[in-house]
């Protein structure tokens, strides 16, 4: 029974389809695991035991009736608490949404349900996805299963930790500046930020609309690809959704052949601030790519150094507007409504009590950046930087198929270490942010443990927009080669919980 939680999603789906195990048994095994370890990990904000078992039973019933099951039917999943789920609480890690039960499913939630995926519950996150450590959750930090005293990355630390702790074989994250890839990197799991517009944002509670992108998290590249195919595709309810076929990511994940591919190493992602062990594993990965038959070249993207400041103008600007709706009028927290106060006062008191310090910081930053007289200097300039970054990518992709870099400059840092230093925290997303600004696709996958701390290091692969399949082709080949070298997946080296 304990073996079930170690299955990959692909193995689980196959076993359910073949009748070797029921979806209910699979779901129960994971619910038991959550029960056993999540007090320590705190990956979940809400476990939907009843909903999960009901969904699992429905899959078993469909199988019993002889219906064909999809490639992920009966596979449990941990859903980041930023997607709406009809009838199931959705908090975004914030007090201000405490008690809110959405009346509707996000498009992504609905697609998962249609695919027969069993949603176990909602995972912890930095409040409104603002952060790189999950310490900004109003509901306490999540521990990194490799070392519970360390951060699991953020904002999607709950989803990544759930994978690494074998609480779920699949998870959903959202990536605005690295919130899927950075947690993937520091927990030794796989995380993909699909091309902006390829996974519907309808029902994704917005942090920064032009940057937010939902995506798959898994323990293997193939599992990520299977989940990617289940959630991607045009949605008429999201105007920024791309109306084009989803790249064949599952096929690409299975290719395991990168001979002849041209791969660029981004020169700017190295140097001061990069941990030695991270660079060591990264450089070994580059060597591996060569051994696998790819042609590796160095490329320069000079504007990438401007990405972080541009991001911290654009994302807070949009956030200041997106988060204005939390005004205590229609849902969520309401503070000070004792009959003596005006609506305006109740809104102010509620926002003061309901938002955490990082959210307030970004609302203030964004409000300032959009103010009349400052707009051109801040938001306007940041948008120009965004264009420059896109041009750097275009130029690079004219010569190479994908770019690679470390996902994060360092391995997981101890909880509390950067909590009072926002600038240090922001640096965790240095390598991931450019892809959000350009809207292209990127993946992080484990490439070893840093020798100095025995913590996972992530390799980032970046592909042009709508060429997400290239991520999986390279990722699948690297993963296979590394697993062969190690004799087992990296995660097996994590200490038992």
């Amino acid at each position, binding site marked *: 029974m304990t073996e079930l939680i170690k299955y990959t999603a692909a193995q689980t789906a196959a076993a359910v389809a073949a009748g070797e195990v029921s979806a209910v048994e699979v779901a129960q095994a994971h619910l038991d695991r959550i029960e056993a370890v999540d007090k320590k990990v705190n990956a979940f904000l809400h476990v939907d035991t009843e909903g999960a078992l009901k969904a699992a039973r429905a899959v078993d019933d469909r199988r019993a009736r002889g219906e064909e099951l999809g490639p992920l039917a009966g596979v449990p999943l941990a859903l980041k608490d930023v997607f709406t789920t009809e009838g199931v609480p959705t908090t975004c890690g914030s007090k201000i949404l405490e008690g809110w039960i959405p009346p509707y499913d996000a498009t992504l939630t609905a697609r998962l349900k249609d695919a027969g995926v069993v949603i176990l519950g909602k995972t912890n996150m930095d409040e409104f996805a603002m952060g790189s450590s999950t310490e900004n959750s109003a509901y306490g930090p999540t521990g990194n299963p490799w070392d519970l005293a360390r951060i699991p990355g953020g904002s999607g630390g709950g989803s990544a930790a759930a994978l690494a702790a074998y609480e779920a074989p699949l998870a959903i994250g959202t990536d605005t500046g690295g919130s899927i890839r950075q947690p993937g990197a520091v927990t030794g799991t796989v995380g993909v930020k699909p091309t902006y517009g390829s996974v519907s944002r309808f029902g994704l509670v917005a942090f920064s*609309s032009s940057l937010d992108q939902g995506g798959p998290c898994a323990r293997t590249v193939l599992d990520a690809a299977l989940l990617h195919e289940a959630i991607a595709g045009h949605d008429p309810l999201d*105007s920024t959704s791309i109306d084009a076929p989803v790249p064949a990511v599952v096929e690409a994940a299975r290719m395991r052949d990168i001979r002849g591919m041209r791969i660029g190493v981004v020169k700017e992602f190295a140097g001061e601030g990069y941990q030695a062990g991270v660079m060591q594993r990264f450089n070994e990965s580059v060597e591996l790519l060569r051994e696998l038959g790819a042609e590796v070249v160095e490329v320069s993207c000079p504007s990438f150094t401007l990405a972080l400041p541009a991001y911290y103008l654009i994302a807070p600007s949009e956030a200041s507007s997106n988060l204005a709706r939390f005004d205590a009028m229609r849902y969520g927290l309401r503070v000070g409504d004792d009959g003596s106060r*005006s609506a305006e006062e109740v809104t102010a008191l509620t926002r003061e009590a309901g938002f955490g310090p990082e959210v307030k910081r970004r609302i203030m930053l964004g409000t300032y950046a959009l103010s009349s007289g400052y707009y051109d200097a801040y938001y306007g300039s940041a948008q120009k930087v965004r264009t420059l970054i896109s041009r750097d990518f275009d130029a690079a992709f004219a010569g190479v198929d994908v770019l690679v870099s470390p996902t994060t400059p360092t391995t997981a840092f101890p909880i509390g270490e950067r909590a009072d230093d926002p600038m240090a925290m922001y640096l965790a997303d240095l390598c991931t942010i450019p892809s959000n600004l350009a809207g292209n696709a990127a993946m992080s996958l484990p490439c070893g443990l840093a020798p100095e701390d025995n913590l996972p290091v992530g390799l980032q692969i970046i592909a042009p927009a709508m060429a997400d399949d290239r991520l999986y082709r390279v990722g699948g080949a690297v993963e296979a080669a590394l697993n062969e070298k190690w004799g087992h997946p990296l995660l097996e080296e994590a200490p038992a919980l």
Partner: protein
Amino acid sequence: MSVISLVSYEDALASYDPVMGLEVHVELGTRTKMFCGCSTELGAEPNTQTCPTCLGLPGSLPVVNRIGVESAIRIGLALNCEIAEWCRFARKNYFYPDMPKNFQTSQYDEPIAFNGYLDVQLEDGEVFRVEIERAHMEEDTGKSTHVGGATGRIHGAEYSLLDYNRAGIPLIEIVTKPIVGAGARAPEVAKAYVTELRELIRTLGVSEARMDKGQMRCDVNLSLRPIGREKFGTRSETKNVNSLRSVERAARFEIQRHATVLADGGTIVQETRHFHEDNGTTTSGRIKEEAEDYRYFPEPDLVPIAPSREWVEELRAALPELPRVRRARLQAEWGLSDKDMQAVLNAGAVEPILETVAAGAPADQARKWWLGELARRANETGTELADQPITPAQVARVCALVAEGKLNDKLARQVIEGVLAGEGEPDEVVEKRGLAVVSDDSALGAAVDQAIADNPDVAAKIRDGKVQAVGALVGAVMKATRGQADAARVKDLILERLGA
């Protein structure tokens, strides 16, 4: 509010030149809202026509209503505007409980239509060109009802009720360039502009544009500058002026108020003001210190709108006959002089006449009733001509009864009165009031004989050949029959009896 004595209108205009800007919001009559599929039907139970998107629930996203865009383009074309090849929505950020997202999805520096004009005709027939700055798309807010408190505004209210059925209904905001050179006629131009715009909107079929239902709302921006000076003065913005007459009154009042402040050596504060229908004055609303910085930025949840030139030209080619062209055609069809046509227009009688003609009445008869009796009544009650409690079909029926000789003019007037008083259809009123013309000789004979007997000297004159004296006897008969006699028949009977 202290009572101040205002500078007279004439004195104000002797020293100052008014500059106006008009902002008109039109609620489109699309079936669904601007950014979601909810119904726009008016009058539903509060908060029944809502969904996650128009309630601004977390995670919801907007999708642009194609008909909304099409309507905006058609309005732009009818206003002789250029249509943007590429434009975007923008967020206008401010907090207010009736705005679910606490930002309004609107357009800022990239409107869909810009640089147009509308020619409007004043009451004396003079044509004035109002230049259009822009027409842009946005969404309406929910509706707040503030209960308790003296003013009906949020401050001082005990509680407020919110109805989000209106939230997300498409709005087109049409903004004029500064209207200069109208002088003393500025208020009249304002009214004529809104009237013409309303007719245009209705002709396009994009909205009913009922001001009393809030489907069309007007903000009057006004400033004064000393005559001869180039630079504009500080403006006031009088919000939500909701009838044609009020638009004129508000502009007029603001001219006098500004002149009064300026004549006193005071300065005009840039502020929003509220217009009061009851006494025709305005009072200060939000002052500048509290004025908000809307922090506009391009709406990241929507993609740019880039109407193809083919589509724009298709829409242009399919525009209906516009009001000015139509009016010229009707004037020719009805054979009216400019002056007569102007009277029809001023009375708002075009549609009633058209509908009456469509119901079978001759144009001149239809015009006679709508411009006469009914216009008088509308004027007295301060209501719109089209809103009188009589239908064009009923007026047409009265015309038919006259044509058939069943009613004379005087009786017809009484029938109209009866219909207006709610006594039923014209035929029922004739029946109930016993108003049919009496042309039965035997019934008239006695009255004729009596009139001859009562007026022997007149009868003698007629016998002597002075036939024109017959009028006095006809009058006597009509009086005796309380106007119900067929006057022509009466005349014949008198002349017959007197052998003239």
